[in-house]
């Protein structure tokens, strides 16, 4: 399960009419982003970032929590915590703790079952004398599905720290709400193929994917949708696979053709990388003298890169490189910043690197 850092801003948890909450939240995202470019808004007032890579950069998880806390608190009061999986990480933030890796089940155990946010389930469990997540998690798997249904079964896995998040933890479209810049609207691909044109094949696939989702949790089965964007990560969006439209209930007909994705200014020329790292991967880039390579104020490299180290691993000589391309600010960010992308080729691989605030990250790999 992902090791996640969560920032929770108690004052921003519900939206207001004027949009001030979302504007403040966007500022929080920008502030937090200084430490890691992979910040994901979860819902108003809550965002997460993968903790592993940044923790390596900043000297451990505690140090990272302190830095992010300071950054976010500059905007609004914030709570920060780290745990395995989003559900536990949000609770860790509420308690301001770093739950050690693997310690999530023990951290969740004493909490009341009501925290799962399923009142019916909590009431039922209460009648059975099951009051804490630990007691719930201790119930044998075999009894759960029949007695508590699919939602209960998923809650059971979350309670035991075996699944990362509850289905309704993320607010859909939060990213779009935050999208305040004037970038041209690109049409989104809306569930092409899933239920348009119902066939036997589609129905069979739907059945087995629903079973897989019961096994792995709702976030365990996703699909990728293309959208406009400059970076490989921005050009596609993962969406929880949804059986919402059942095979029988669709209108059928031909599947809509995917809309053309408009050329996006600042885009890295094709071909696109086959691997886009979901977690930030730390990279170090050095020139022939072993000095770190940086991006200057003018968006140029301070010296020619000669070797690359990924995640603190051994130095690999570069056989080629190209760029840098200026990377504009991310969509929620108002502050201009100097960031750039660079393509590098080593004997083993070719990578797309992102430089931001003097640090290099492997954003994607041409795997």
């Amino acid at each position, binding site marked *: 399960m992902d090791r996640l850092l969560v920032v929770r801003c108690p004052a921003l948890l519900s939206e207001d009419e004027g949009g001030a909450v979302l504007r403040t939240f966007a500022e929080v995202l920008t502030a937090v982003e200084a430490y890691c470019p992979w910040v994901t808004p979860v819902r108003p007032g809550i965002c997460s970032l993968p903790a592993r890579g940044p923790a390596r950069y900043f000297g451990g998880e505690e140090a990272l929590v302190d830095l992010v806390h300071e950054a976010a608190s500059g905007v609004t009061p914030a709570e920060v915590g780290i745990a395995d999986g989003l559900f536990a990480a949000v609770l860790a933030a509420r308690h301001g703790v770093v739950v050690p890796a693997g310690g999530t089940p023990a951290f969740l155990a004493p909490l009341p079952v009501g925290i799962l946010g399923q009142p019916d389930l909590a009431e039922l469990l209460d009648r059975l004398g099951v009051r804490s997540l630990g007691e719930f998690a201790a119930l044998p798997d075999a009894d759960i599905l029949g007695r508590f249904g699919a939602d209960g079964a998923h809650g059971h896995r979350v309670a035991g720290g075996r699944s990362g998040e509850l289905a309704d933890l993320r607010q859909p479209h939060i990213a779009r709400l935050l999208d305040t810049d004037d970038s041209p609207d690109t049409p989104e691909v809306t569930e092409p193929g899933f239920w348009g044109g119902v066939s036997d094949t589609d129905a069979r*696939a739907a059945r087995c994917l629903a079973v897989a989702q019961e096994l792995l949790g709702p976030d365990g*089965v996703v*699909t990728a949708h293309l959208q406009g964007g400059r970076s490989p990560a921005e050009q596609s969006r993962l969406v929880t696979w949804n059986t919402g439209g059942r095979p029988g209930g669709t209108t059928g007909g031909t599947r809509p053709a995917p809309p053309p994705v408009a050329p996006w200014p600042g885009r890295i020329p094709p*071909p696109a*990388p086959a691997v*886009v790292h979901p977690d930030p991967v730390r990279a170090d880039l050095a020139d022939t003298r072993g000095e770190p390579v940086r991006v200057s104020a003018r968006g140029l490299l301070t010296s020619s890169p000669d070797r690359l180290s990924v995640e603190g691993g051994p130095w690999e000589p570069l056989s*080629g490189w*190209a760029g840098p391309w200026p990377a504009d600010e991310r969509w929620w960010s108002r502050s201009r910043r100097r960031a750039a992308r660079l393509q590098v*080729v080593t004997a083993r691989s070719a990578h797309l690197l992102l430089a931001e605030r003097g640090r290099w990250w492997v954003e994607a790999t*041409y795997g």
Partner: protein
Amino acid sequence: MFVSVPDRHLSRERDPAALIALAALAERTRPVAASRTRLLPVAPALADLLPDGALRRGSTLTVGGPGDDGALSTALALVAAASGTGVWCALVGHPGLGAVAAGDLGVDLGRLALLPRPGPAWAEATAVVLEGVDLVVLCPPFPPRRDMARRLVARTRERRAVLVVVPGRAGWPEPPDLRLRISDVAWEGAAGGEGHLRRRRLTVTATGRRSAARPTRRVLWLPDADGTVTPAGCAGTGG
């Protein structure tokens, strides 16, 4: 090579080559729902590597090399053509698919299910997916036990699906029906800060069982400048 031809009057035709061409054509134009035939189409550049010139239902392939470079792209290129005809695909165990690259190769993202982090339940999840998805690309997140691998191979055969395994560091203990090895990977386009990565040349060597025991080698652009897969000259000339 023998291709099953369901229509009786076709089997009375004399020319076997015409029969095969017809069967291949029928396979490509067949409505999705009825697609329970033996072969699934692949991109022309890859057809020579496969004993049937197509993916045979029920078979298991592995794709790997000395590094992991090119393995995922090759696996995606293998399933792309069939995906384009409406066959469902799933990618199990790869947390960071570049969806744009997959789409450029021809994978229909609307019929591609991703199970990015199945965790310890990866084998069970793969078995479940094989029930209803015809093309499954598996990147085992943990080293598979032999009995697990064997069960998935058996399930693939039974469900008449195609399992493409990218063993990566985890490995794959079962001998596949066809093994694709990637070597001599070289990027074109980026040198000393000029240009940009344009295309990648790699060599794919296919070794199979029985009729396919003799290695077949093809040099490919994968991805080519437009993100697709194309042949890059004859066998043995790359390097």
